[in-house]
């Protein structure tokens, strides 16, 4: 393609008015030399500049002078493949090839504020915004061309960014723009392409970042190497709320490579020239430190009892007066209690961030799920105006919710404050990650329901006991663990319990009377959002209970679910599951167990049904999860391979939680400190996985990333029951919980 003669950089040099109205300081700060050096995606076709207003095309789509398209999203790449999916959406509406598209993830210096990358919302939210912006951009460009040629828009066609009018009328987007920005407002009236015309959306486009990863190219925040960067470690207390009594800092100070030892209340950290020097000093600090700590409790044995005894008075989420009477007067009624323990995110790589202070300007390179919430919380931590803080989102090791990413970012900034002018890279040790990340809360769920003789559910009562599923530091420094350890500590205020606890607790089934009560509980361990939040425990209970009800009326579990469903798409995933797995011919086989489960995530996102198959070994008193087959309907599928990949991953991760995992602790602290004290599923135990997609291109896309977590747990429980006659209601489902005498 012939490129326009106006070079964007020349244009920028000769023009200044575009920056008017911006706060110039953070921008000037953005454009330090280092920032240019460290660009991990080495494409630098557009100069950095902040977005002005999320209603402008320029905040989402930028066309530079080199025939490239840059897409900006406030969402983070967490390994879910969002970069590729968003590029597909933008390229589709713009009519450009994927090869010329680039994407910039959350960066307070450049992208719009899209909150957290959480709740399986990125395609629904950012995807929608980018789709509209791209459609608007195309319309604006077509209008420019039609004005230029005096023709109607309807007669124009676009092919890879080149607009064609009559036989001699041909001009590219970039030639038309002549280096100008697309600062038009997004009217939301620009027509979005009909799905039948899609060429990029719906295709299994390969993730380009994987081609870089296989070559060992830099990708993660861990791979950042800024000029003059130094390395830090933080010494976390042995247990929550412990206070530092004494520590031998003198012995460390003068060791080779140690640049700085920081002691601020109970916050202790070291800065060293080399990473390993910091690790060695950290080890010595750990050994020489003495702490005053209070006992942790209640312990695992007493936890669930305490939960029921000491939770807050119930909060009525959904009421149905006289429900217990209705259940009692039903011809079939059952009641059951389920439990899930604390689970860990347990990312493979430890949390890591880089921070740098220049005078009172702070830059943080962070694997956070939300750069703007991070900016807000850091502003609180340092009593600094937001404008003086720039947060640049970078990929971290797999992120499945609120893990250590925000904590490590705040700590890096706290440490770097003591060493201004130099980028400080803080990486957690494995035990920091295992002990200090906020866990998915333990929960108790009590269900009670009544049915008629035919298996129609009439009334359903739910009681949930749970600690909070969200303690994200959204503007409050007290949510950072280390902010609580400072000499002048920030207080942690839980800030109320979130709706995350009862996520998916209301059955999607067609039940006339439903009641839902939540008993908020202040548990012993630090908790926050873990993939699916309460939905994991709630769906485990709900879908296990559905099987118990089906057993009670002796109806096939898939038929029983369909019987109680109105939602066609829900029925479709179950029917597809039955046909793909040959469900009808499975029957009862000795030594085998089959279990199904279903949910519509959040009752508003993807539909997912799953079959789990287990092999029973009575002689060895063990069982093995051999295969899982999932069917997912996420509405319009942007990238089928991406959707499959994420669903497969969710299935394996949930199987690991369900079969193996439970955070161990005693009165002195967390015992699950590494992979041997917190084993997760490895290759020999991973079942065969199959995922089928029901694509509905005519419908909006729906969040999918967390859809598998709950149903997988219940499907495994149901399969174990099918194979062993033991109903395991307390996670994890371990072989020793099976009554082998009964098999």
């Amino acid at each position, binding site marked *: 393609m012939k490129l326009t003669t106006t070079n964007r950089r020349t244009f920028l040099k000769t023009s200044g008015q575009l920056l008017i109205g911006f706060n110039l300081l953070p921008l000037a700060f953005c454009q330090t030399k280092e920032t240019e050096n460290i660009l991990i995606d080495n494409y630098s076709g557009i100069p950095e500049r902040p977005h002005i207003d999320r209603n402008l095309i320029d905040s989402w789509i930028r066309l530079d002078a080199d025939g490239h398209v840059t897409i900006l999203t406030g969402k983070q790449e*967490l*390994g*879910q493949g969002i970069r590729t999916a968003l590029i597909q959406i933008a390229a589709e509406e713009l009519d450009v090839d994927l090869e010329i598209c680039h994407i910039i993830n959350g960066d307070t210096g450049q992208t719009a504020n899209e909150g957290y990358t959480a709740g399986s919302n990125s395609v629904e939210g950012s995807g929608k915004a980018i789709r509209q912006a791209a459609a608007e951009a195309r319309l604006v460009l077509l209008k420019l061309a039609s004005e230029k040629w005096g023709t109607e828009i309807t007669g124009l066609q676009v092919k890879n960014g080149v607009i064609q009018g009559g036989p001699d009328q041909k001009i590219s987007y970039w030639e038309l723009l002549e280096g100008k920005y697309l600062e038009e407002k997004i009217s939301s009236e620009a027509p979005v392409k009909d799905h039948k015309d899609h060429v990029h959306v719906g295709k299994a486009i*390969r*993730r380009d*970042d*994987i*081609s870089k*990863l*296989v*070559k*060992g190219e*830099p*990708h*993660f925040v*861990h*791979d950042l190497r800024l000029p003059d960067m130094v390395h830090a470690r933080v010494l976390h207390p042995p247990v929550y709320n412990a206070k530092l009594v004494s520590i031998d800092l*003198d*012995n460390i100070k*003068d*060791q*080779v490579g140690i640049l700085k030892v920081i002691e601020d209340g109970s916050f202790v950290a070291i800065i060293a020239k*080399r*990473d*390993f020097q910091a*690790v060695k000093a950290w080890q010595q600090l750990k050994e020489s430190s003495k702490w005053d700590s209070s006992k942790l409790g209640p312990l695992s044995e007493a936890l669930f009892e305490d939960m029921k005894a000491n939770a807050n008075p119930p909060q009525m989420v959904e009421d149905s007066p006289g429900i217990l009477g209705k259940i009692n007067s039903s011809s079939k009624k059952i009641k059951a209690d389920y439990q899930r323990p604390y689970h860990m995110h*347990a*990312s*493979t*790589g*430890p949390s890591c961030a880089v921070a740098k202070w220049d005078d009172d300007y702070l830059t943080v390179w962070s694997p956070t799920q939300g750069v703007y919430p991070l900016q807000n919380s850091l502003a609180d931590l340092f009593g600094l105006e937001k404008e003086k803080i720039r947060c640049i989102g970078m*990929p*971290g*090791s*797999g*992120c*499945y919710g609120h893990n250590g990413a925000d904590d490590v970012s705040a700590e890096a900034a706290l440490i770097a404050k003591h060493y201004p002018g130099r980028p400080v890279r803080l*990486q957690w*040790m*494995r035990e920091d990650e295992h002990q200090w990340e906020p866990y998915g809360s333990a929960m108790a769920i009590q269900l009670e329901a009544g049915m008629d003789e035919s298996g129609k559910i009439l009334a359903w009562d739910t009681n949930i006991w749970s600690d909070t599923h969200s303690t994200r530091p959204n503007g409050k420094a007290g949510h950072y663990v280390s902010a609580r350890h400072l000499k002048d500590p920030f207080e942690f205020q839980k800030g109320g319990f979130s709706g995350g606890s009862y996520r998916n607790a209301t059955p999607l089934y067609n039940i006339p009377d439903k009641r839902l009560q939540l008993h908020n509980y202040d548990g012993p361990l630090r908790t926050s959002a873990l993939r699916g939040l309460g939905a994991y425990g709630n769906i485990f209970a709900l879908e296990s209970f559905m099987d118990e009800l089906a057993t009670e009326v002796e109806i096939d579990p898939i038929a029983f679910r369909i019987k109680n469903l109105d939602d066609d798409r829900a029925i479709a995933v179950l029917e597809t599951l039955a046909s793909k797995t040959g469900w009808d011919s499975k029957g009862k086989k000795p030594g085998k167990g089959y279990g199904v489960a279903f949910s519509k995530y959040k009752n508003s996102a993807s539909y997912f049904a799953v079959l789990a198959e287990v092999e029973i070994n009575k002689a060895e008193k063990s069982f093995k999860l051999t295969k899982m087959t999932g069917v997912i309907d996420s509405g319009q599928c942007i990238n089928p*391979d991406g959707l499959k*990949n994420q669903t*497969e*991953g*969710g*299935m*394996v*991760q949930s199987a*690991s939680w369900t079969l193996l995992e439970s955070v161990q602790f005693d009165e002195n602290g967390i015992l699950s400190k*590494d*992979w*041997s004290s917190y084993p*997760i*599923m*490895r*290759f*020999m135990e*991973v079942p*065969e*996985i199959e995922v089928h997609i029901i694509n509905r291109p005519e419908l909006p896309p729906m969040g999918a990333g967390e859809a598998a977590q709950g149903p997988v747990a219940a499907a495994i429980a149901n399969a174990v029951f099918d194979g062993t006659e033991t109903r395991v209601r307390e996670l994890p489902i371990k072989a020793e919980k099976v009554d082998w005498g009964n098999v």
Partner: protein
Amino acid sequence: MAEWLGRGLQNLVQRFESARDLNKNKETLFSFFKEGFFVFKWYLNKILFFNIHVLFNASPSIPCYAPLKIDRFEIRGINGILIFHWIQNNMTVKAQLDLNGKRVQVEVDEDEPLLYVLREEFGLNGPKFGCGLQQCGSCMVLVDGEAVPSCIQPCKSFEGKKIETIEGLNTINGLHPLQEAFFEEQAAQCGYCLNGMMIAGLGLLRSNPKPSDNEIREALEPVICRCGTHTRFISAIKKASQKSAKF
């Protein structure tokens, strides 16, 4: 001064004395306190701190500590206790490595594990810190054709061995069949464990170019993946085994 003090230490003390112009009549006591310390008592009336790093050869009468690196000494208390600290482990050593087909040399802390050296000295990104406990496989490298963790074993211990990382796989002709297979199978979510998977897979394919599913699982067992991408890693290694007869 006792006769058995090495000349290096005597020099150090002399330098210290001249620097501080201490009272010539002071009584110097010392005792062999415990491993890692010499304690000297002075009659002083102020506390002083020094940061002096000196390498010297101790007398053979101090068993097995030569050469020692005095890391720091300090004077404490009104009675003037001079304490010499040494840290044996802060010795730097030279190591000759055969890394991705090149001979390279580094001078690093004696017990610095290979992983840190690969990342910091050679700017490699493939091997990653995951646990530092040899439990997760993120840091795997190929050593003489075998996949091994690099997060604990000191760099020096890899001398004379052939070290390979994923950075060494791609050639001027493009991607290695294993890299191709991982890309084509889209075998990654977050990708943090990808290095361990590829190296463990490569180690297997070197000795067994046509492995069974179970052999692949066994070979990848030491590597942790939290995103649940396991089945794709198995497919990728199978695909690689079909692409090439030799690795």
